[in-house]
């Protein structure tokens, strides 16, 4: 778990409360959506919103229960949810994933993946011997190539090559 020297970032209680509020809101959204299409008894039995409405209701009710429990149980809840240092580590992985996913529609899966892996390896400076550029290039390009071979060629599931990929294809067509 997190280091003892790591200063706590946020108490577990606040995260519990936040998540409970989120799931309660989700339940409310489901209920609203269900009411829109009708939760009553139609010509052919229960309407489409009948079952989802109760799902939403249960979701919200259970979330409120969790919220109350989070407010009541004092000692366990004041423990740190995550240390500052540890959370920085998590963000250092999560934010690049977000960027990777955002870049995907534009750069295409192959290019985005290669850059993502290369960046991840290049950033790892804690090692005694950082990776050399040839290794970084080989692994990142190799992974992208492998995914092309496995998915597009072998299993015939073409992956999105993105706007850039389309441009390359257009340019290639024009040259020919």
């Amino acid at each position, binding site marked *: *778990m*997190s*280091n003892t020297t790591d200063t706590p970032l946020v108490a*577990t209680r606040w*995260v*519990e409360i936040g*998540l409970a509020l989120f*799931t309660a809101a*989700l*339940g409310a959204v*489901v209920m609203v*959506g*269900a009411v829109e*299409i009708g939760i009553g008894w139609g010509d*052919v*039995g*229960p*309407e*489409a919103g*009948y*079952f*989802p409405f109760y*799902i*939403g209701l249960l*979701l919200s009710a*259970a979330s409120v*229960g*969790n919220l109350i*429990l989070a407010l009541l149980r004092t000692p366990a809840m004041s423990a740190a*949810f*995550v240390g500052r240092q*540890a959370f920085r*580590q*998590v963000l*250092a*992985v*999560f934010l690049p*994933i*977000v960027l*990777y*996913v955002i870049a*995907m*529609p534009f750069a295409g*899966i192959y290019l985005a*993946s290669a850059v*993502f*892996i290369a960046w*991840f*390896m290049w950033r*790892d400076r804690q*090692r005694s011997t950082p990776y050399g550029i040839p290794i970084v290039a080989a*692994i990142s390009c190799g*992974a992208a190539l492998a*995914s092309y071979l496995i*998915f597009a060629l072998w299993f*015939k*599931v*073409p*992956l*999105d090559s993105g706007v850039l990929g389309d441009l390359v294809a257009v340019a290639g067509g024009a040259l020919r």
Partner: protein
Amino acid sequence: MSEIDSLMQGMALILTPHHIGLMVIGVLLGILVGVLPGLGAPNGVALLLPLTFTMEPVSAIILLSCMYWGALFGGSITSILFNIPGEPSSVATTFDGYPMARNGQAGEALTAAFTSALLGALVGVLLLTFLSTRIAEFAMAFSSPEFFAVYLLAFCTFIGMSKNPPLKTVVAMMIGFAMAAVGMDTVSGELRLTYDQPWLLSGLSFEVAVIGLFGIGEILCTVEEGLVFRGERARITPMTILRTWAKLPRYWLTWLRSALVGCWMGVTPGGPTAASFMSYSLARRFSKNRDNFGKGEVEGVIAPETADHSAGTSALLPMLTLGIPGSATAAVMLGGLMIWGLHPGPTLFVEQHDFVWGLIASMYLGNVVSLIVVLATVPLFASILRIPFSIIAPIIIMVCSIGAYSVHNSMFDVGLMLIFGALGYLFKKLGYPIAPLILAAVLGDKAEDAFRQSMLFSDGQLSIFWSNPLVGSLTTAALLMLFWPLLARVLKALLGTRQGHARRVS
């Protein structure tokens, strides 16, 4: 006996080079996902699912189920050599497996683990072979109220028996049900919960949730814990294997007990994780070498491994006969079955005779293949874990993203995976269970259909769930399971007021 005949037919069906090749591939991929952090059996099966759409259902299920066996075996490798359970169900294996490896008995521990795993799995398959037809025949008489009562029983058992707080289990489950409801209503064909957003029209697929919750969520947790792989070396020679095998028969009682615990927990939705823990604590209680437990006792490896695998295999019994998966991985496979156009449940045994018996036959063969493959490849997979995290992690994330994309060839699903990843991290840290969410997301539509049909029969009267002895006892059992924690507390209070009082005073 007709079961033997059917089994022989199944054997004839699968004993082709193509299918045996698929088994080896499935097992290898399974060990790989079992060994890698962030990828587990449910995740691996979900990732592979889009690639099976063009296959024959029998070939596809052989590939997926062998991946499941492989992942169970792979989980034991990391537990024993690295003290890192690759799967939640192999946590109990670390208790004695890792100490054994540190004492230089890694080879013995691995051989004992794999062998008992195989025996456990075989007990599970035997159960499946001889019980499934009967249960399916019995379930043929079920109509909608009975089916809903069975679903209710499965879900209530999850809430009542889970180690997680009941309200959190309910929240996770309801999110799954809500997910399943998005998109087209299966009864009326109406669109619902789409809020006029085009990207919600096709619904939310459970594969994406599995990949995000288990894959990305797991990676984030691993990063936060700052996991370092410091593994013990493993050398498995034929001599080690034979020497260990010679020692194993004396633990027959542990095996038998663990296999029974495993089968029971696998058939009821307790799952392999609960089975392995329970079997470990039982073995410790009854063992002659009680004091050696936790310090490297081979019995402490045999017990959880046997239970883990027999639970893993017998989880397929309710999945095939009733359409109710006993574990998260079985839930994902069930989703696969539905995508291939098969209807899990009793009719499967009549309509898809070849498929069912091909699968059961492949389970015998697949587990033997797994044992051979895993014994041969332990050093290879152990070296994969020594690859630095900064290389392995981005590749796992790439595989997850491609997997999420290939479900519907949509970028929206990749974003959804990311949201589920963040949710998975929070869920894991705050003690929300993930398996009920997956189960509900897969079964939601079927449970809803059963419920609405029952309501149609009865004109909206809930009393239909007590209208005959069968459905009545199922529903009552479900409610008992749901309130089990409360009932247990009341019983304890009634029986042991005095002890409780004494404890409070001290």
